[in-house]
C-alpha cells in the first residue's frame, strides 16, 4: 500500500535525491518494486545481478556505445524547427531526432542494450511485447544481427493498425504472435509475453520495451534510453550556450520521456513535461492517461498509476496511437509527478493529428502519431515562452508506420 505517498520531495535540493532512485528493491518512493509470480523471481534476480555487473563493466558499455554510433547512427541531431517556431510565435522549438535512428524510433537504444546483455547472459531466445510495432521491429532487428531467436507478442487490434511493422518484423525473421485475449492491445501482449517467459525461463530473455515491468526493468530501460537526454543536454549547450526552458515528450510507458528527462533532473530550472494520450478527451473516459486520470495500483510487476475500475480491474484504453495505448505508466514517472519534479499533460487524438500534419508540412519531418502528442502540447505552450527560450521536444519516432491510420481517419484509401 501507499505508505509514503504523502511524503513528497518538497524542495529543490530533494530533487537531487531523485537521481539515486530506484532503491535496491526497485522502489521510486512508493512506486515500482517487483511484483511477480514466484517462478519469475529467479530469472528476474538473475537479470538484476547481470545488469548490476555489466553496467559497471567498461568493455560491455563500450560495446553498446559502438553499436549506438555504428548500428543505430547516434548521436541523433538536435534540430531547430525554425519555421514552426516562427509560426507558433514563442519559444524556439528543437527536435531531438530519435526518428533518424536505425528502425525509426528511440526504441532501438533499449533493444541494443538488452540484447547485448542477453547475449552475455547466454540466453538464446528473445521475447518482446509490442504496441505500435516499433519496439517489436527494434527487437527483431537486433536479434537478426546477433543471431538470436525472436518471438514478438502483439495484440490483434494493433496488428490491424500497424500492418507495415508486422511485415517488417517477419522480414527480419521474427515470429509475430497475435494476442486475442482481453482488449487485444499492448497490455495483453505484455501479459502473453510474461506467460511465455514463465514457461521458458531457462533459455529466454524478455526484452521489455518501456520503463515498466518488475525491477530492474524500469531502471535498466531508463539507463539505456538516457543517451537521449545526455546528448540533448550537451547539444543544447553546444548549439545555444544554454539549457532549455522545457522538455516535452510523449508518454506511453514512458521510455522516451524518461530517457530525455533523466539527465536533466538536477537542472531544477528545466521543466519536464510528459504528454499522455487523451484519446477522445479525458472527460469522455476514452483515453490512455493514467497520470492525468488514474490512481495507484499494481500491474505488470510494479506499483504505479493505472487506469482501473473502483474494484481494481484494468480498463481498456483508447488512443489513435497504438504505442500510447497502455493503461499504466513507468513507476519513475509516477514518483516524478507526486514529487512535483515533472508535470504530465495530455493531448487528444484530434490535437495529435493536427500537429502531425502541421509539422509534416512546415518542417518536412513526418512524426509518429505517438510523437505527435508531444508536438501538440509543445504547440499549445510555445506562445507562453519568450522568443529566446528553448523547448526540446523528443521526436521519438517517424510516422511512416502511421500513414494508413492517418489516411483512414480522413476517409482515404491507400
Amino acid at each position, binding site marked *: 500500500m501507499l505508505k509514503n505517498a504523502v511524503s513528497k520531495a518538497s524542495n529543490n535540493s530533494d530533487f537531487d535525491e531523485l537521481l539515486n532512485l530506484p532503491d535496491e528493491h526497485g522502489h521510486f518512493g512508493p512506486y515500482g518494486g517487483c511484483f511477480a509470480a*514466484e517462478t519469475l523471481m*529467479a530469472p528476474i534476480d538473475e537479470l538484476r545481478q547481470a545488469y548490476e555487473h555489466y553496467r559497471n563493466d567498461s568493455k560491455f558499455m563500450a560495446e553498446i556505445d559502438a553499436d549506438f554510433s555504428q548500428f543505430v547512427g547516434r548521436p541523433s541531431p538536435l534540430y531547430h524547427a525554425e519555421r514552426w517556431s516562427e509560426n507558433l510565435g514563442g519559444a524556439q522549438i528543437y527536435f531531438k531526432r530519435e526518428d533518424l535512428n536505425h528502425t525509426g524510433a528511440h526504441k532501438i537504444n533499449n533493444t541494443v542494450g538488452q540484447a547485448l546483455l542477453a547475449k552475455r547472459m547466454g540466453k538464446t531466445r528473445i521475447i518482446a511485447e509490442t504496441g505500435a510495432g516499433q519496439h517489436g521491429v527494434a527487437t527483431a532487428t537486433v536479434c537478426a544481427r546477433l543471431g538470436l531467436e525472436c518471438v514478438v507478442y502483439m495484440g490483434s487490434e494493433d496488428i490491424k493498425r500497424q500492418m507495415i511493422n508486422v511485415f517488417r518484423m517477419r522480414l527480419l525473421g521474427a515470429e509475430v504472435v497475435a494476442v486475442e485475449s*482481453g482488449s487485444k492491445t499492448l497490455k495483453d501482449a505484455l501479459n502473453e509475453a*510474461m506467460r511465455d517467459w514463465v514457461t521458458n525461463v531457462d533459455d529466454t530473455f524478455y526484452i521489455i520495451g518501456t520503463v515498466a515491468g518488475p525491477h530492474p526493468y524500469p531502471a535498466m530501460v531508463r539507463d539505456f534510453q538516457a543517451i537521449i537526454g545526455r546528448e540533448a543536454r550537451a547539444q543544447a549547450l553546444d548549439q545555444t550556450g544554454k539549457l532549455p526552458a522545457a522538455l516535452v515528450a510523449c508518454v506511453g510507458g514512458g521510455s522516451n520521456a524518461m530517457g530525455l528527462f533523466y539527465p536533466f533532473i538536477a537542472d531544477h530550472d528545466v521543466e519536464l513535461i510528459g504528454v499522455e494520450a487523451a484519446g477522445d478527451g479525458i472527460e469522455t473516459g476514452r483515453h490512455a492517461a493514467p497520470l492525468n486520470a488514474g490512481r495507484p495500483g499494481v500491474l505488470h510487476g510494479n506499483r504505479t498509476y493505472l487506469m482501473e475500475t473502483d*474494484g481494481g480491474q484494468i480498463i481498456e484504453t483508447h488512443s489513435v496511437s497504438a504505442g500510447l495505448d497502455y493503461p499504466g505508466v513507468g513507476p519513475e514517472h509516477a514518483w516524478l509527478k507526486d514529487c512535483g519534479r515533472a508535470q504530465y499533460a495530455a493531448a487528444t487524438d484530434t490535437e495529435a493529428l493536427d500537429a502531425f500534419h502541421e509539422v509534416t508540412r512546415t518542417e518536412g519531418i513526418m512524426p509518429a502519431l505517438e510523437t505527435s502528442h508531444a508536438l501538440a502540447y509543445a504547440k499549445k505552450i510555445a506562445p507562453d515562452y519568450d522568443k529566446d527560450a528553448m523547448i526540446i521536444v523528443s521526436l521519438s519516432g517517424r510516422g511512416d508506420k502511421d500513414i494508413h491510420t492517418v489516411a483512414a481517419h480522413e476517409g482515404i484509401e491507400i
Partner: protein
Amino acid sequence: MSRIAACFLGLAEAGRQALIPFVTAGDPEPGVTVELMHAMVGAGADIIELGVPFSDPMADGPVIQRASERALAHNVTLHDVIDMVKRFRQSNAQTPVVLMGYLNPVEAMGYEAFADSAAKAGVDGVLTVDLPPEEGAELVSTLKERNIDTIFLLAPTSNAERIKRIDAMASGFIYYVSLKGVTGASNLDIEAVSAKLAEIRSISRLPLGVGFGVKAPTDAANLASIADAVIVGSTLVKIVEENAAEPAKIPGMIGEALSAFRRAMENAV
C-alpha cells in the same frame, strides 16, 4: 489455530491428503458459486480455493483466463466474492476457503478494509499470485492480525534462500507450482516434483500442496503419495466452461469429476 491449520492437522492424524479444488468465483455466473462450493465439499473437497476474477491474469493459461472474463462480464468484484464466502459459511463452518487472485483488486479495496471484510465473511487464507515476500510484509501482517493465513507459491525455480524466506512469511500451507508455466499447462513430472518437495521439506514444516499440472485422477493419485495436498484447477474450470450455457448442471458435473479425484487419492494410499 486457523481453520486451515486445523484441517491439515486432522488430515495428518487420519493419514489422508487434502483435495483442494479451484474454481473462479462468479463463473459462469455469480448465482452458481455458493451451491458449487457446497457440491465440492460433498464430493470430498477438504479446502476450497476460490479464484478472484482479474482483467489481466498473467500467471494463468487460457482456460482460467476465460473464466475470469466470464465472471467479469457479470461485473463480479472482490466484494461479491467475499459475499459468496459469507453465504457459504451460513451452512458450512468447517471447510477452509482460500481466495486466490492478483494483488490489484486488493490494493483497490485497501489492505485493512479487505482483511476486515474477509475475516468477517469467514475467509481463511489469501494467495496473491503477484505478491512475492519481498513486497508482502504489510499484507501478511494485516491478514495475520485477523487470523487469516497468507499462502505463498514456491516454484521449480525457487532456490533454498527463497524457500527459507517464503517459509518465514507463509502460514497455512505452501503451494508448490509443479511446473514452469501457467495454470493448465500439462507436463507434470512426478520425479522432479518429488525431489523438489524433499528439498522444501528439509526447510519448511508447513503442509505442502501441489498444483498447476494436475489433469487426471491418476496425477492426483501420484501426488497423494508425496504431497500433503493436491490442487485441481483448470480441469474443473474446463467443465464449468463446457456447461456455461446450463449453469444449473455445473455443481453436479463438478461434484462427479471431483469424486473421481477423491477416489483415486484414497486408493493410492
